[in-house]
């Protein structure tokens, strides 16, 4: 082989081997890095500092921080951690760098406010974030919606929720349901129908998979709550009619003229427990239900999202 061919062959081989090695090593390295994890995701806590440091490339930095936020949350959520201390600062930095990054506000509304393990448990900061967004984007109705959403779901301040929806409904091109929601807050805040309306709205209007999935789970759980409430009422009525508890689910179903044994959204039959309680067969499949669980039931630290979109 001519010397040049030999050099070529050797260099090509070196190239192939070293390239493969590099790729393998890169995959490996993350496990070895010193407690990098999530502290390093932030480096600096202050949005102002970051804004200064980004030398005018705010948009790019905002994108980078947004990517980190999503990764951070996903990573933790599916590993079952129960604290999301860095979520608020991450969102604050992202929106400080780019006040028009709407996905960030949406994300904050869905995941900053709820209690762990479903969120960071910081509704105040979530509200702060929404107000910041509204201040910079007064014509975006979705921000008002998000604000009302937080007041309704976590803070349970229906008056403030109504106000928020009302403010939003005045924005040009606002979605019509804002007016409806404002009205319902005032009168029927505790209704299942209201909750369903709210979560359906979130499901319809969001484009982020995480948020839609979250909304879907809530809708399933609302269904369960509603079913259990109705079945529980049926048990009470049965008791009033017959003076005893129904012996089985089928007896209750017949008495209520139901087409068959009632089932939950997963197709599993509701169960009648000894004292006349209606129970869900697998409460762990419904992370947000408030009814149909046995006494002393604690939701799992690691919520399982069953539905896939």
């Amino acid at each position: 082989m001519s010397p040049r061919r030999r050099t070529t062959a050797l260099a090509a081989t070196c190239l192939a081997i070293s390239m493969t090695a590099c790729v393998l090593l890169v995959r490996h390295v993350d496990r070895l890095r010193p407690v990098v994890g999530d502290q390093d995701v932030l480096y600096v806590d202050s949005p102002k500092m970051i804004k200064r440091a980004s030398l005018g490339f705010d948009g790019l930095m905002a994108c980078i921080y947004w990517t980190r936020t999503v990764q951070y949350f996903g990573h933790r959520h599916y590993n079952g951690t129960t604290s999301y201390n860095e979520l608020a600062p991450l969102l604050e930095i992202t929106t400080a760098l780019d006040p028009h990054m709407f996905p960030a506000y949406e994300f904050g509304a869905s995941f900053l406010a709820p209690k762990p393990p479903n969120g960071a448990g910081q509704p105040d900061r979530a509200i702060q974030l929404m107000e910041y967004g509204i201040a910079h984007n007064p014509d975006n109705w979705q921000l008002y919606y998000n604000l009302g959403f937080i007041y309704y779901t976590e803070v349970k301040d229906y008056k403030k929720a109504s106000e928020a929806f009302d403010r939003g409904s005045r924005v040009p091109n606002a979605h019509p349901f804002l007016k409806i929601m404002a009205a319902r807050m005032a009168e029927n805040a505790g209704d299942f129908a209201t909750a369903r309306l709210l979560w359906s709205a979130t499901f319809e209007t969001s484009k982020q998979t995480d948020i839609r999935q979250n909304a879907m789970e809530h809708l399933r759980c609302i269904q369960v709550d509603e079913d259990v409430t109705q079945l529980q009422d049926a048990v009470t009525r049965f008791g009033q009619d017959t003076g005893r508890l129904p012996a089985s689910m089928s007896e209750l179903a017949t008495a209520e003229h139901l087409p068959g044994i009632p089932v939950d959204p997963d197709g599993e039959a509701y169960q009648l427990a000894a004292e006349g309680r209606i129970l869900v067969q697998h409460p762990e499949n419904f992370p947000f239900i408030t009814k149909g669980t046995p006494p002393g039931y604690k939701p799992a630290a690691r919520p399982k999202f069953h539905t896939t979109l």
Partner: protein
Amino acid sequence: MNARIAYIASNTFREAVRDRVLYNLIAFALLLSGAAILVGQISIDIERLVVINLGLTAVSLFGVIIAIFIGIGLVSKEIEKRTLYTVLSRPVRRWEFIVGKFFGLAGTLVVNTFFMGIGVFGALLYVAHKFARPDAGILVALYFIILEFLIICSLALLFSSFSSPLLSAVFAFSLFVIGSFADDLRGFAGLTHGFTRWVATGAAYLVPNFSALNVISVVAHQQSIGLQLILHNTLYALCYATMALSGAVLIFDRRNLK
């Protein structure tokens, strides 16, 4: 063969040492270390932090600039100025030329880093008045910075072998910046789908992984760095440099020197 590589390497080293740009940049870096002392004095308790952070960042940044400035002269300038003709008319193989240049430049940067590192330690001693055990981490950080330099040198050579001095500098510097965000690039790749995902993932893996080599804030917080990571990074730097140099050899071997 080995002798020729050594001769080329030492000549490259000599060239670097006589290049006035080098001294200006080193002086500037040392100045920055000094400035770190002043900055640190503004806020109590974090003087150490500032000195280490600012000092090591200066070493890293200026080293990269030096690596690129001198690196672009490695092959591009030689081709432009035709100093290469008389070298290649001798029994020097083209690959020996590339490898010799690499070692020469690497050697220059190691010596550089040594002097700039002294500056950092000097500044640290000034503010802290003594060294603590965890300060040995600074040596590891400096070692990783040298590994970064090796990678940048090899990239500068790779680009030099086929493009003009200016373009090589631009490419090399861009890869440095992108490589510093390698983590984010991989995260981004994970969020995309389809064809974009393939491209982004490919890019994310081929870009030099400077995120893993940057332990400046870790060291500033006096955290320790595992031996495994040190070995791993060393291996990575060697493999990456080999990859870039192999590419450089393959390209340069075929190049018509007009």
